[in-house]
């Protein structure tokens, strides 16, 4: 991964930074051991670090709560811990996720999601507890908690803060291996934990430093929070939001199998398959092996789909009956005492939920596609595309199928059958458009006239009878929307593909192809910024024609060799273009060799991804450096007597310096989030590309 062997692999470095920022030093110490040494047991971590067993266990619990690491389960003698790189990296997206949810489901759902993100998986009952505290008297106490919380925020979220909340649930979730059970908290800390969560729900200010930093990304969200009332009016409303999020696939239930690393999962599935289908002995023949491979893949898919199954919600009954029936027994069994003051306990209260990371990628893909369309075809078409994509989003659990079966040899690829939920029609979109949306904008006036059949287009391309979008009938609206979708379909990127006539015109979207184009577009963007139009031209020529020697390159680009040589060299050095020398004679003379240049998009993609990770690390390092420079002032500003009286206790110069630090931090973080967008495009929207 790294060019220089002395360096830590860049992703490990990045993720360690992120963990440290979000969960504090203890968790980061444990995490970095795992990052450097790979899969480890508890004892091995203890050997590799200077921490004692108890500290390590605390660290591991935090990491497990956040699903940043896997563990190998309770069945085996020793439990191994292993990093989940995807979700570790996802820490950078905390703020973005809240923003995405806010756009789609409103600020209340965003509030729920951001709490899920900060505290990792959470029991629904604890959610209820946090939003609707059991005893009203504790409200006074919670004020203290807020103070505590603010203190924590200044000190950066060190382990204890998160520990409380994590400890709160880990007794209930069996996801924590038995060897960590002794970190399980006593009942008093359990209530404390609830109070901490409570304090958080009261004010976003108490969320701790890390939370604050990454939530800064959602600037609009913050504004929205101020304007709209985020507090839930009733328990039912909270349940409604949770149910919606689960149904749409944004939140999923936590099961023990989600803690298995991909390797462990594979072993488990393989063993199951061997036991069930091959009566206990591993298959030897090629055919049997392939059969087993398919069976394993199918099991994995099944398991994954199970995670997303929506649990049955019982909440149609009235509160009284619910509290009298089943739940009582459950409460007794679990030995957890619920105070019935705020809503009755429900069977689903014991469900443990977490954010579904795959859905986040789907939503990010939507945003980026809309952005691209806005650049190419204008804002009106982009808005229509956004509606299209969001309608499809609900039925799209993930960006691409990573467990697809290899095609069966000899069997012709049967024509792609499209599920009806992957289709979207013009009429449905037209209905979703706001009344005063100017659907005509961005279209050829002639097209508008041909639909409305009123007036004509003057020679200056002005309509003789203007069309007020507020007064277009639904039929015409549909046709106009269809025109926009046709623009999308005609684009060389084929943003939409025609499917049938249902609902005036029905479309589907070939995400796979578009994702490839997106990756290519980002590579080209990068090269354009570095080397200008000439570099992009070279890349495109090579992509189209394959391996070229100098003369063929000149012909494709219609330029002289001298103009091209420099750019080929630069791009080769940067790793975007590969060169190859094929000797024609035995002596391998340079003169008698073919010198080919080619472009491999998978390599370019990986190289750019690697560089982007490195760029993100540098930004985080720079933030740390900038903070270090201003640290004395920051500690002063965070003193409890200074907070709120900044004008009084701080000099003009100090205030300016604080302001400057804020700007610098904001600028760096914004850039970090934009680099994350690039990472999403390069990594999350498409599986590995087959090299040419």
């Amino acid at each position, binding site marked *: 991964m790294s*060019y220089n062997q002395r*360096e830590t692999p860049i992703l490990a470095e990045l993720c360690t930074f992120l963990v440290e920022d979000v969960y504090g030093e203890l968790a980061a110490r444990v995490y970095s051991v795992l990052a450097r040494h790979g899969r480890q047991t508890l004892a091995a971590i203890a050997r590799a670090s200077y921490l004692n067993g108890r500290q390590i266990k605390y660290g591991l619990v935090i990491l497990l709560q956040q699903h940043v690491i896997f563990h190998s389960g309770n069945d085996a003698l020793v439990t191994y811990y292993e990093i989940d790189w995807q979700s570790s990296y996802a820490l950078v997206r905390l703020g973005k996720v809240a923003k995405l949810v806010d756009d789609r*489901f*409103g600020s209340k*759902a965003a509030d729920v999601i951001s709490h899920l993100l900060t505290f990792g998986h959470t029991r629904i009952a604890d959610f209820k507890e946090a939003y609707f505290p059991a005893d009203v008297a504790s409200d006074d106490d919670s004020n203290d908690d807020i103070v505590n919380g603010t203190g924590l925020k200044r000190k950066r979220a060190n382990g204890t803060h998160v520990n409380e909340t994590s400890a709160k649930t880990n007794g209930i979730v069996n996801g924590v291996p038995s060897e960590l059970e002794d970190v399980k908290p006593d009942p008093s800390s359990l209530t404390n934990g609830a109070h901490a969560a409570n304090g958080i729900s009261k004010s976003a200010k108490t969320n701790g430093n890390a939370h604050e930093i990454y939530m800064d990304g959602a600037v609009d969200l913050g504004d929205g929070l101020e304007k709209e009332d985020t507090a839930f009016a009733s328990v039912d409303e909270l349940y409604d939001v949770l149910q919606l999020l689960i149904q749409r696939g944004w939140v999923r239930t936590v099961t023990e199998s989600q803690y298995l690393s991909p390797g462990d999962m594979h072993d488990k599935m393989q063993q199951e398959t061997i036991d069930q289908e091959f009566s206990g002995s591993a298959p030897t023949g090629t055919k049997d092996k392939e059969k087993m491979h398919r069976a394993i893949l199918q099991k994995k898919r099944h398991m994954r789909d199970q995670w997303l199954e929506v649990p049955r919600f019982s909440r149609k009954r009235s509160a009284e009956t619910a509290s009298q029936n089943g739940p009582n027994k459950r409460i007794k069994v679990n030995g957890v005492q619920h105070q019935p003051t705020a809503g009755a306990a429900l069977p689903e209260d014991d469900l443990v939920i977490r954010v579904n990371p795959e859905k986040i990628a789907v939503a990010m893909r939507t945003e980026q596609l809309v952005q691209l369309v*806005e*650049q*190419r*075809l*204008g*804002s*009106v078409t982009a*808005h229509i595309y956004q509606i299209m994509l969001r309608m499809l989003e609900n039925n799209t659990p993930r960006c691409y199928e990573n467990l697809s079966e290899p095609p069966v040899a000899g069997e012709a690829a049967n024509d792609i059958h499209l599920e009806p939920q992957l289709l979207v029609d013009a009429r449905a979109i037209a209905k*979703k*458009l*706001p009344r*005063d949306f*100017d659907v*005509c*904008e961005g279209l*050829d006036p*002639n097209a508008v006239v041909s639909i409305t059949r009123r007036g004509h287009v003057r020679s200056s*391309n*002005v309509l003789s009878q*203007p*069309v*007020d979008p507020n007064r277009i009938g639904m039929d015409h609206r549909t046709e106009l929307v269809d025109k926009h979708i046709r623009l999308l379909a*005609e684009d*060389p990127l084929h943003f939409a593909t025609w499917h049938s006539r249902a609902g005036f015109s029905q479309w589907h979207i070939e995400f796979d192809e578009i994702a490839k184009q997106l990756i290519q577009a980002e590579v080209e*963007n*990068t090269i*354009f*910024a*570095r080397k200008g139009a000439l570099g*992009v*031209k070279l890349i*495109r020529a090579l992509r*189209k024609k394959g391996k070229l020697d100098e003369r063929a390159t000149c*012909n*494709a680009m*219609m330029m002289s060799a001298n103009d091209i040589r420099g750019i080929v060299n630069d791009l080769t050095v940067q790793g975007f273009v590969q060169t190859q020398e094929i000797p024609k004679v035995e002596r391998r003379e340079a003169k008698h060799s073919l010198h080919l240049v080619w472009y491999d998009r998978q390599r370019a993609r990986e190289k750019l991804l690697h*560089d*982007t990770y*490195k*760029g993100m*690390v*540098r*930004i985080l*390092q*720079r933030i740390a*450096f*900038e903070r270090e*420079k201003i640290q004395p002032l920051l500690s002063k500003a965070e003193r409890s007597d200074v907070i709120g009286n900044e004008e009084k206790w701080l000099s003009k110069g100090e205030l300016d310096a604080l302001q400057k630090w804020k700007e*610098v931090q904001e*600028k760096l973080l914004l*850039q*970090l989030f*934009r*680099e994350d*967008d690039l990472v999403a495009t390069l990594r999350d929207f498409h599986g590995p590309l087959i090299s040419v």
Partner: protein
Amino acid sequence: MAAPVAPSMVPKEEDATAQGPSNEIVSPADALYDKCAQRSQGTVFFQRDLSNMQVAETMAELTVLLQELCDRHLMKLMTLEGEPCWKLRSRSDADKLRRLTPDERLLYHHIDQVQAEGIWSKALRARTNVTQQVLTKCLKSLESKDLVQSVMSVKFPNRKMYLLKHLKPSEDIAGGPWQSDGDFDTALIDAISSAIAQHIENETCIKVPGNWNDYGQHDMAAEIAHKKAQVQGVQDIEDAPAVKPYQPPRDPSTSKLVHKNSPQYPTATSVATWLNSKEVLRGKTCREDDMEQLLEMMVLDGRLEKISGTNYRTVLSATDKTVYNGFVDAPCGNCPVFDLCSDEGEISARTCVYFGQWLETQSEEV
């Protein structure tokens, strides 16, 4: 093939007519030559044509006459579909040929055979089996006698191709209309591609003024009130966000390009026809292949985009801000020492001058 022979034929004809009356006794061979010369230039004569000229009494005599003319290099023996045929050479050319050494003649013969395609000196040597010294000497003398010319091949830039002086090198070795002297004519390509870009834009796009659909005045106050109500009102979470799409200004003086509704997308053929009808390429015509090469290049340039297999259209961009991506817009993306940068040491995030410039803060001094 035959056209370049013409200039040298003209004096010869005068010659013949001048000689005709003064010198009554013309040899039958010359008579035959003159008769042939009266036909249009470049004509190929078959035995049948020549006997019809009634110069020779018998077939045997005709054969002798033709042999004599061929020996004097006034005629050139060729075959067409297995049948022998003859072609005239101008007297001046024939004169030059007569003075050639046998080696030179041999080489000339081979160069003549390939016509406009030209022949590489190495291939020539392989065919004629002469030594390198002889080859160089003979080719030099042929060139100095204005019988052959050498051209640099476009396909193989280090090869010297030989062909007859009066011929125009074929496109294989001299390149298409976009090349001159074996190199791409950048100025010409720029000019032509701009013209083509404009042409395709006219075909596929339509310029729409800002006020094209002027459906009523916008009341700013009402709009603000509306927006407020939208933001404050309780929103159904099923709804799309209450953000109103950006309304472009309705200024009639501004205009923007949009894609035409069901246009005729140009193809290489149609653009080539258009270009040839404009006669922009002085004296040259642009074939379909040449045009395809140019259009494909413009696609690479990002000025055109390919719609389907053969159709092109203009690339439009709705926004004109230049934003690349998160990585290259940060200092690291364009950093010349990015690969040398490490966690600590002389080049690191702490000491980075580029970060310092970008953030307007101080970096650590090394």
